[in-house]
């Protein structure tokens, strides 16, 4: 493990039996898991290169229990890591050796469906897809759709502000959440927002969304649902250069067209995906665009024609247009299976996640190829072309000495490059532990201090999910002081990891 976590507090570990007994009084029966074998499934999330058994796992089933667990931990100085379905790709739910892992998997109820207000109230353990399925019969759906939507929980989606291919047109999680019930580290239960479009006061819902489980534990959420578009069709367009494909993306947008989804794959990704799902992808192109248009039939038919014409002008060499729902899904099958497809051609891979200004795409891909040669590792690219969100997959073999370290160094270089060209470190997977130490590439100490001060407003002792997102732990009292000089930490004795 190359990323360091806070040193476990030995005094907490020494009280482990006492802590477990106290937690069992709050959550009786099978709600507390303490044996090493049973805790095994909880020792990592989707970033499986990093593993750490927690001190104990607690699986509450009511808000009251969540509140009491947090209050107990707060009073006893015990760290807590919240966890949904564990599909985070950035280590956001990685346990701590001296911490309680608080699983929300039992919060599985859909509490209310309100079609008149176009809102659904759910518990955080409900999967993203289950929300859409619950309202499908009436022709509604929940727009954000991360690739993991069959498994990922809505609470985790809010923690990570995770999006999916629909983001460009329909927004991210933060644009589709109306309110929540949240439990602070002190055990205090608050309700923020509801079915109205806006909250009173500061937009706390807005800052909780994407806060990676560092501000509070969500026990209920109200999301906005949308009426399903009448129809959707997709184009699959091949180009002889990434530049031409990038130009096509820019031209579609400047023509005033915002597709429901606009995805790009480079040659290695196309070949891996085609070998896996046989979607009929052209193998002699350098870049493949899948552009989906959704809405009323008449609109989709017209826009398909406009996009096809734009693609031709940009030098497309192949263009297929779906004529049936089956064919549309086939176009997508390779893109959606790109990660497992790449998994077949490499023992291991790292999935990176950065966003760049779209115009920088050719430069970034060129530089990535140079890095690929430098590190001796292959890279395949799939990305949300519409919003510039890249997912380079770095292929490596963990059994070969040094390859994992090289892959991680390569990934870090890619993210530095994203920031260098005006982009950001993460577009949808979150910072977690994975990109934590890269935060100074994008933010100054002052920027990070301001974010950590906000953390203190919610969690004054820093007990909720510490070691994630921020490269340096701070004491709240220190952060509260005025006139911290640029770059000079007032407490040099506080450890950086």
């Amino acid at each position, binding site marked *: 493990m190359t990323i360091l976590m806070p040193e476990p507090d030995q005094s907490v570990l020494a009280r482990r039996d006492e802590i477990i007994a106290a937690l069992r009084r709050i959550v009786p029966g099978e709600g507390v898991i303490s044996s090493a074998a049973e805790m095994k499934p909880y020792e990592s999330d989707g970033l499986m290169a990093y593993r750490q058994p927690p001190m104990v796992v607690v699986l509450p089933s009511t808000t009251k229990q969540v509140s009491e667990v947090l209050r107990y931990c707060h009073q006893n100085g015990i760290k807590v890591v919240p966890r949904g379905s564990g599909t985070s790709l950035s280590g956001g739910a990685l346990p701590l050796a001296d911490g309680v892992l608080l699983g929300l998997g039992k919060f599985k109820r859909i509490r209310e469906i*309100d079609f*008149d*207000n*176009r809102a659904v109230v759910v518990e955080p353990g409900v999967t993203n897809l289950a929300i859409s399925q619950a309202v499908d019969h009436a022709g509604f759906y929940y727009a954000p759709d991360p690739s993991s939507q069959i498994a990922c929980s809505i609470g985790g989606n809010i923690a990570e502000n995770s*999006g999916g291919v629909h983001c*460009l047109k329909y927004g*991210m999680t*933060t*644009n589709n959440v109306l309110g929540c019930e949240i439990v602070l580290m002190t055990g*205090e239960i*608050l*309700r923020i927002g509801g*079915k*109205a*479009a806006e*909250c*009173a*006061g*500061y*937009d*706390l819902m807005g*800052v909780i969304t*994407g806060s990676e489980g560092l501000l509070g534990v969500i026990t209920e959420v109200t999301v906005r649902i949308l009426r399903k*578009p009448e129809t959707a069709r997709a184009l699959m367009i091949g180009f002889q250069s990434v530049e031409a494909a990038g130009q096509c993306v820019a031209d579609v*947008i*400047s*023509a*005033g*067209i*915002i597709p429901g989804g606009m995805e790009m794959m480079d040659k290695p990704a196309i070949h891996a995906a085609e070998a896996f799902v046989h979607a009929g992808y052209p193998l002699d192109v350098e870049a493949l665009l899948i552009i989906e248009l959704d*809405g*009323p039939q*008449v*609109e989709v038919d*017209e826009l398909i024609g406009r996009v096809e014409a734009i693609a031709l002008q940009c030098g497309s060499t192949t263009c297929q247009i779906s004529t049936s729902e089956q064919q549309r899904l086939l176009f997508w099958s390779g893109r959606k299976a790109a990660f497992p497809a790449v998994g077949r051609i490499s023992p291991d891979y790292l999935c990176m996640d950065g*966003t*760049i*200004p*779209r*115009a920088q795409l050719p430069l970034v891909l060129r530089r990535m190829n140079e890095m690929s040669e430098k590190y001796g590792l292959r890279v395949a690219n799939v990305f949300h072309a519409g*919003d*510039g969100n890249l997912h380079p997959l770095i292929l490596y073999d963990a059994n070969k000495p040094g390859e994992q370290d090289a892959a991680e160094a390569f990934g870090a270089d890619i993210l530095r490059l994203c920031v260098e060209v*005006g*982009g*950001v470190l*993460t577009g*949808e997977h979150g*910072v977690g532990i994975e990109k934590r130490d890269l935060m100074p590439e*994008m933010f100054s100490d002052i*920027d990070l*201090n*301001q974010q950590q*001060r*906000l*953390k*203190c*407003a*919610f969690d004054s002792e820093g007990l909720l999910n510490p070691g994630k997102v921020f490269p340096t732990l701070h004491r709240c009292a220190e952060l*509260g002081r*005025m006139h911290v000089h640029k770059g000079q930490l007032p407490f040099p004795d506080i450890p950086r990891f």
Partner: protein
Amino acid sequence: MDTLKVRDAQEVEDAVRAAIANEQPIEIVGHGGKRTIGQPMATNAVLELSALNAVAAYEPNELIITVQAGAPMADVLSLIDSKNQHFAFEPMDTATLLGTAPGAGTVAGMIGAGLAGPRRIKAGGARDHLLGAHAVSGFGESFKAGGKVVKNVTGYDLCKLLAGSWGTLAVMTEVTLKVTPRPESERTLVLRGLGDVVANKAMTTALGSPYDVTGAAHLPGSALRTTAGALAEIAQPDQALTLLRLEGITSSASHRAQSLRAALKSFGDAELIEDEASAALWRAVRDVEPFAASGPRALWPVWRIVCPPAAGGAFGEQLARESGGEVMYDWGGGLIWAALPPAADGHAKALRQRVEKIAGHATLIRGSDVVRAAIDVFHPQPAGLAALGDRVKRSFDPTNILNRGRMSRGSAT
């Protein structure tokens, strides 16, 4: 009144540091058009940002624009319009309602007020379109939040807090906003003579349809009695108007308008208004023209009430009847504008007791100094949320230097 007109971000930082050192709270203004919203502030020191008015970068293909905080909205809107783009959240121009200079207002003022127009139901508000910001906190430190790309989850989304914080957390110096292509055309369906509750049902039906409605407003006949402009042109005496907007490429907007008209048949035979005539109607709704400060209700307090949309009709109808006031509805019933007859507390107590029963909240947007000093202008929060809000305020502005007391009486914010 001491006004310090700053010219760049460094001067903002210097000014805030001086204010901290002198323990002198400062009021932050752009063009000053929204100064009468919020609790009256006890300070004579004003920090004016109108000279920070440059467009730093506009990348139409990237769908973003970066401007200095004091850039005039009118200029920015005109610039993006020249590339056939717009702010999808359709921010209202408060000049009509407040009686301030027409066309004035800055980008940061718009964000600080957290504005949104009729397209809120589809596109969100200012919060949803603020991608990044540079600002000076009440620590006297320049910090940045967010980024300059449309998809970003790096660190806390501090931009959400800045939007709608009325300058109480930080002084924005530069902001990056998302822009989107302007729809090719628009169509408005007009239903006439519906009561508020029935109109609410019509709007709910339209918004629950697959026809992608981007505006749903209802104006009771009484609210239209004294209005001028686009709404007056189509209004008939004492007859309510219910407006439903469809936008997009021309063939689609026309097609959907026909489909929606059929779906709403039970509510009446809808008229169709197209393009510029339609746009004028929605500007009037956006800017709350029926309650304009130049109209006969100039002295009436005006409230902005946000509630679950389906509850709006019944609530508004009762409010108008019992108070003797007038209401109009936007966001399918989720936003109610209410002009109420003058009263010592501007009807705050009765209004809030009632709106809390439907899980809504109410903000006084236009009111006399006396009324504003006597009541909570912003909806009071439950104790726990208020305390958290105070802690958030202190995490940005520990000595309460910035717009002290504007959002809440008797607490830090």
